[in-house]
């Protein structure tokens, strides 16, 4: 009998620990499918973050290393400088990438480090139980902004793709979402494009994925997906923020 569908080889058989309705599972699958379809799974080295995806090393079916909180791009840099022909990606959340790891993110990007960052933005610290993240929306209630995020007191959310798109080392930056089927399809295409940019040695690439956290948002999974459309996407518009994949970022 012909096989019409099967699970990607890019994921292990391990059951994930993610909450019901969490979209990490979808993003894992998209990343894994892209690794397999581009033929880089056997050559890939992934870097897991600190946060909800801390155990990503159990789920991706390739060599993996666990980085200290926020340091994944520095760890990936060390790997890539040692093995420039291996495929190297990081998988990071918003606290990891845009708070404690801001320096590592910005500088690996501006160096044009030939790595790919998968940045999962769910506007909250999930693993520690729902505190304010650098990407928490104005007015959003979290454990540490119980009266809603007051931007005059706690500051404004960080728009990562917009910020990084100003840097010369960035070959590709796109923001996508995984809250409905058309968006998921676009997200996969974006991840594939970013991965291809690395394979072609074009420079730093980042895909920001707007993701749901029903548990810490205090919503049902369906409400959470709708909340992305109503609140997240207006503040974090989807689209391509930088595309230098034609020429690449490195000087001749």
């Amino acid at each position: 009998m012909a096989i019409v569908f099967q699970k990607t080889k890019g994921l292990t058989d391990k059951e994930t620990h993610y909450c019901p309705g969490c979209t990490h599972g979808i993003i894992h699958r998209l990343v894994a499918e892209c690794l397999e379809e581009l033929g880089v799974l056997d050559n890939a080295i992934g870097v897991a973050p600190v946060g909800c995806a801390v155990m990503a090393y159990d789920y991706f079916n390739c060599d993996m290393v666990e980085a200290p909180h926020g340091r994944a791009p520095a760890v990936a840099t060390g790997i890539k400088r040692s093995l420039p022909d291996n495929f190297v990606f990081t998988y990071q959340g918003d606290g990891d990438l845009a708070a404690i790891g801001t320096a590592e993110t910005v500088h690996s990007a501006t160096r044009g480090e030939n790595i790919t960052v998968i940045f999962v933005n769910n506007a909250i610290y999930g693993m520690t139980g729902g505190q304010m993240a650098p990407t928490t929306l104005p007015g959003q209630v979290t454990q540490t902004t119980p009266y809603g995020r007051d931007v005059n007191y706690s500051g404004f959310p960080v728009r990562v793709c917009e910020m990084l798109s100003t840097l010369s080392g960035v070959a590709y930056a796109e923001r996508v979402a995984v809250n409905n089927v058309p968006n998921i399809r676009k997200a996969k295409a974006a991840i594939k494009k970013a991965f291809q940019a690395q394979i072609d040695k074009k420079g730093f690439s980042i895909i920001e994925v707007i993701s749901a956290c029903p548990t810490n948002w205090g919503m049902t999974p369906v409400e959470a997906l709708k909340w992305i459309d109503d609140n997240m996407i207006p503040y974090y518009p989807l689209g391509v923020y930088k595309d230098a994949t034609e020429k690449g970022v490195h000087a001749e």
Partner: protein
Amino acid sequence: MAEKFLMKGNEALAEAAIRSGCRHFFGYPITPQTEVAAYMAKRMPKIGGTYLQAESEIAAINMVLGCASTGARAMTSSSSPGISLKGEGISYIIGSDLPCLIINVMRGGPGLGGIQPSQADYWQATKAPGHGDGQILVFAPSSVQEIVDLVAKAYDLAETYRMPAMLLADGMLGQMMEPVEFPEVEPAVHDKSWALTGTKGKRKPNIINSLYLQPKELEDTVKARFKRYEIIQEKEVMIEEYKMEDAEYAVCAYGAMARIVKTAVVKAREKGIKVGLLRPITLWPFPQKEIAAYGPKMKSMLCVEMSMGQMVEDVRLAVNGSCPVSFFGHTGGVIPSPAEVLAEIEKMAGGAN
């Protein structure tokens, strides 16, 4: 006979690392270790290696973590305040069982402190290089030649036992110029089947990780690491015993400080005081047994350091009350002079004979 070069300590250190197979250096500028990075920046591009200036000490040590996880000989170099920043990464490298080489050219502290030579990071290096139960190998050279010899040794042992190694030097040693020769030895080859290289479709994925959420699993992992530490303490201790054969008194000192003490020991001997020098070359593993054995034979011991007294605690623990142990030192970049040390030896011996 290998060729002799006249080199600065910091430059000899960098060259020794390259000759030991290091091709990846990740650094961040800080005085007084600048020459290490500058030498690497000049040499690495010529030999197909990496010199990368990181955005911070934190990033540099994490680049070392990533690079070491591929099985390559990675290195970073800094000075006291920078080593504090590396503490996080060092702990993760310990917890991930990765080998690497870390240089600390010590300066005075705490805080920004000063930039003059110091030994005030002994506790940090030997007791708590990062959070959690764990150790790193700590070597304390006292000459430029010994820097060269210990760099090769440090990489070899780091890979044998899969743990970070630190060379603890000070600005005096780093800036000192001495003749040095590089032994013509091929770096030892160790099993790297744990390294991340991509599975190539031929093996299961390798995972490098320091997270163990099950308490029992974490305890077992730490205990297994401490079993290795026991072997290291048994097999890898290095100490120089100078004029100890007939000694009644011993002075303990390490690194550049030990050279000054040596001068004072020779002068004291001229005055008829039977004194010798005990110089730990490995600070971890500490020469606990060796120093303990001297305890009952000595009338008294003196520990001399460029700090307020840190190694002296390990000396006291080692002799465990079998002889009195006094301390003399300066800190903040003030260097004890041979005359001062001689006066302390005379005081210990109850005046010149």
